[in-house]
């Protein structure tokens, strides 16, 4: 369970990205976060991920005070979160296989098991044939799917997806959403930031709308 209590976030430059956000996301829920460009969707995900700190407010994740977690425990926490970054964040000097495998290596999964899981994840996103390519020789949509595979391969407790279908054609986008639903059905909490109204309508899941950093429809 992820709980935000009156969370504020002002960036150093004084830009208010989130204002007084109070929000509860149940364990195993599937939530869309939507809102116009610059509304604070990525900021919200980054705070859950621990890569941004809120300026004010309280956050409880699984009952623990998130802001009191010592920095040395952050890696362990992040290994339980899968994050599909808006800008992918792939390592250009490693192959697709290595990029996806890295998130298992970090968790200490053995080589042979890792291999199996990586190949399976790549087949889910239809990229088996690109396993030995480096990210820069992939199309934009292919890179995005590598990012999806890297987040799913670790079977995370929480999946954060930031605009995960922005570079995908509608058919592929739907396929990815089916993947997320499947992962969700196996117990993973899924939070997807997206602009894709068609997608939101099609899945009819709970939707949180942000506008200029404020919750528009609180739940």
């Amino acid at each position, binding site marked *: 369970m992820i709980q935000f209590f009156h969370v504020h976030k002002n960036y150093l430059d004084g830009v208010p990205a989130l204002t007084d956000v109070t929000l509860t996301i149940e364990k195993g829920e599937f939530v869309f976060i939507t809102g116009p460009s610059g509304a604070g969707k990525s900021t919200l995900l980054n705070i859950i991920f621990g890569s941004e700190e809120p300026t004010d407010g309280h956050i409880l994740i699984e009952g623990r005070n998130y802001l009191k977690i010592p920095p040395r425990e952050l*890696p362990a926490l992040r290994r339980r979160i899968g994050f599909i970054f808006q800008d992918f964040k792939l390592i250009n000097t490693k192959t697709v296989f290595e990029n996806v495998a890295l998130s298992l*290596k970090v968790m200490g999964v053995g080589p042979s098991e890792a291999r199996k899981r990586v190949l399976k994840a790549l087949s889910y996103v239809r990229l088996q044939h690109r396993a030995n390519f480096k990210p820069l020789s992939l199309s934009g949509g292919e890179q995005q799917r590598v990012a999806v595979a890297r987040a799913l391969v670790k079977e995370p407790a929480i999946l954060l997806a930031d605009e995960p279908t922005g570079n995908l054609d509608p058919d592929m986008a739907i396929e990815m959403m089916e993947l997320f639903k499947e992962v969700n059905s196996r117990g993973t909490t899924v939070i997807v930031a997206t602009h894709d109204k068609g997608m939101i309508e099609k899945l009819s899941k709970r939707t949180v709308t942000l506008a200029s950093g404020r919750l528009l429809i609180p739940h």
Partner: protein
Amino acid sequence: MPSGFSSFSLYYALTDALGNLRDNLVTSLLSALTVAFSLAIFTVFLVVFVNLNNIAATWGERTHVVAYVKEGIKTGPSGTAGWPSGTAGGPPGAANWTEALKKTVEATPGVKDVTFISKEGALAALRAELKGHEGVLEGVAPDILPASFEIILDPSYVNPDGVRSVVERLRAIDGIFAVEYGAEWVERFSSFMRFMEIFTFVIGAFLAAATLFIISNTIRLTVYARRHEIEVMRYLGASGAFIKVPFLVEGMASGVMGGALSLGILFLGRYAAGRHIPQYFIFIIENPFPLWKLSGGLMMAGLLLGGAGSLVSLGRFLKV
């Protein structure tokens, strides 16, 4: 899975490091070469200074102390002819007495080597010096010059205090009537040695600092060029060790490579210089260390520099 550093993680970190080394071959090679040149510069300095120090040390042997033997006492019938000139002066009894005196001198702390110069020997030396004008010495009594001991000091005594202590002791010996030594030379020599020590130390420290700086800067730039990769690893939940180990291994590997390369550079340089420098001075660039020590030392230095450089450079990228 514990949050620590599992054996699989370690395995990965090491294979990763080798993979990185391959991926960043050009950069790794360039930093290895930087390490190599830095170490080579340092070593050339060290070799030249060790060699200069070594000859300086042998110069110490030139610090003669001359102890003159007392006249007439127990040296046998002086002034009488008949003793074969050229043999150590005096009848057997006198020779024994001289031997005993020599033993006493040799036993003096700080004395390394003693040569006895008989009266006749002293005169012969003077005669040789006057080459072509030996006439001056015609009819001169063979014992007009005193017998003496020429004393070479232990190197550790070649300094003003050391020499003075030896001279004091020699003067106290019965049978020695005067002791002479080159006070000025000792003064200069010991200050030169002090200079050499400080100069070697100052230049050495300076070069070591410069080398360390250059290497850590090279690695810092390498790390900087890969900051994105480091960020991604942190986002994937990699522990500090997991991120650091590959860089550390990579840094140490290119450091060792640099050490090995510096050995090559040095031998090539030695060969090139050997073809141009007169044989007489080649000693100054001759390697004074056993080969295994030199190569082991260079590679160890490379390893440490590479490793330390990596750790220092990584510091700022691993915060938060």
